[in-house]
């Protein structure tokens, strides 16, 4: 039996947003706001930095473009020069389409797999799932979770703090096994 953190339920998207601002201002860093859909303005309310995903996608896109152009150039100039009606081997305008397609393909891989990497998913076991009520978060519930590993976490103080800022259904997450 080990504890992991505390969750508290909030009424609505705006209640969650205002609560998030208060949690941020009290100095918590290891907390999260769970909602059935992304809430506008929540990143600032939680004090999150801009997502780094753009850099991953950019790097992947550039790789795709260079790979596409390089592959075609190498094939037609070095590996397998194919003379068709005397047309130039280094026909760079004709290479642009495949270069573009591979840039898009690699960027898409970067976007999806980069998102999974930054979100640390797939991850099938997480302390928030110990709560039975928490599963409503994918339908109509709004929760804040504060983890034990947060430097200023103190079970009783955090509990009363969450109550104070309007949280209900406060629950301590603990592993039942």
């Amino acid at each position, binding site marked *: 039996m080990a504890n992991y953190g505390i969750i508290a339920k909030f009424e*609505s*998207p*705006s209640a*969650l*947003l205002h609560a998030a601002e208060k949690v941020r201002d009290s100095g918590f860093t290891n907390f*999260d*706001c*769970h*909602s*059935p*859909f*992304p*809430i*506008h*303005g*929540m990143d600032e309310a*939680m004090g*999150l930095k801009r*997502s780094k*995903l753009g850099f991953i*996608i950019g790097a992947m*896109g550039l790789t795709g473009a260079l790979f596409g152009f390089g*592959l075609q150039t190498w*094939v*037609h100039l070095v*590996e*397998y020069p*194919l003379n*068709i009606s005397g*047309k130039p081997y280094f026909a760079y305008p*004709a*290479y642009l*389409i*495949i270069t*573009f*397609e*591979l840039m*898009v*393909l690699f*960027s*898409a*891989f970067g*976007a*999806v797999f*980069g*998102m999974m990497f*930054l*979100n640390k*998913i797939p*991850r*099938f*076991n*997480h302390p*928030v799932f110990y709560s039975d009520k928490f*599963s*409503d*978060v*994918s*339908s*109509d519930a709004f929760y804040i979770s504060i983890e034990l590993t947060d430097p200023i976490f103190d079970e009783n103080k955090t509990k009363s703090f969450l109550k104070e800022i309007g949280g209900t259904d406060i629950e301590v997450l603990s592993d039942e096994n």
Partner: protein
Amino acid sequence: MQKSDYKSRALVNAEQLLPGNQTFTSITNDIAGVPEQKKTPIQWWLLFGLALSLLGVFAGSLGYLIWEGTGIWGINMPVAWGWAIINFVWWVGIGHAGTLISAILHLFRQNWRNAINRFAETMTLFAVICALVFPGIHIGRIWVAYWFFPLPNQMGMWPNFRSPLIWDFFAVFTYFTVSLLFWYTGLIPDLATLRDRAKTSLRKKVYGFFALGWRGGNRQWQHYELAYLVLAGISTPLVLSVHSVVSSDFATSVIPGWHTTIFPPYFVAGAIYSGFGMVMTLSIIARKVYNLDHIITLEHLDKMAQIMLLTGCMVGYAYAMEFFVAWYSGNPYESFAFVNRALGPYWWGYWAMIFCNVVVPQFFWFTKYRRHIPFLFITSILVNIGMWFERFVIVVITLHRDFLPGAWAMYSPTIWDVAIYLGTFGLFFTGFLLFLRFLPMVSIAEAKLVLPESNPHHGDDH
């Protein structure tokens, strides 16, 4: 003053797009309730039976094609590109509306797309699968289809990257992969909803596996939203490039009637036109079978009809401009190719196209017709018939009479052309019906964003 204007607009918007005092809970129940149904509707079984029979036709005719070769088709010189290419272009085009709805309308913040985007993306996925069948089988020796890929091999051979046919392969392959990723990324939060509501352990495990352990935390939403936005951003030029590349299969040749610069934009407009026709057909059926009139509303159908009117007028303009340029060029072969389209032996194909693609959408100028469901259903089917004839006109009528009358010939399809085409409907509808049965057909997370209370600043004074 400005504030209250904004609020009332948000409310009016929500009332039209999600009528009947919906809440977050009722949206979840309505949409997730469909794949959770204990008893599958009898209409579903009837349609699924029909789809499976067509899939059987597909498998049989494809087997015979592989066994016997492309000689079983009606193709011969000079019409060496028959139904296979027509069907390929037709199916890819249908797919394009899905990407337009999910990507371009997302970038333009068109909230009304939220009720139909999942639907349209799924349509894209299966339409592109159907399309990919044709380049795969028209090469004749299907077992070497992997030669399309630039793979090192013992023969030391590589594809010719300067050929539009290989561009086409890269474009459609990328398009399929990106559409699949986009579709799946959109599904992750909804799969989590189905996981959390699952009553049986098997459902919980299967949905849970594909939901990847999604927790709906804002630390996840943050990266998720950016990924989704970027996917929309890169899909937009991608979808425009795909049909432009498809059109360059024709436009880079020297055949009169094909060798024109209008092809890329004209193909893209036609693709979106036919795709919206298909989304319309499918959503009218689905909202009827599953009683989702309050989620896919008349407002949505009206907006789709408006886009069909716009793109229908664009293809109409392209048809007229092709004729004008053929005359203005002063090239007798070019002029002949177009006169032959309208007045030659295949005149009925040309006029079927004009009727379905140019005349029919003109009714959409009037609100009455844009909101008349039986009318919309019939016209949405006519649009796709018209777009099929457009490709027939481009492929068959252009090829059958080119430069020298000595090389002219007539073309007619065989039973196998027809069987394979009908068979792809089996492939398409089998996949689509399985999707309707097991996955949420409307994005649960995004549908909620239409409600004004999803915006935390709604009702605030700052």
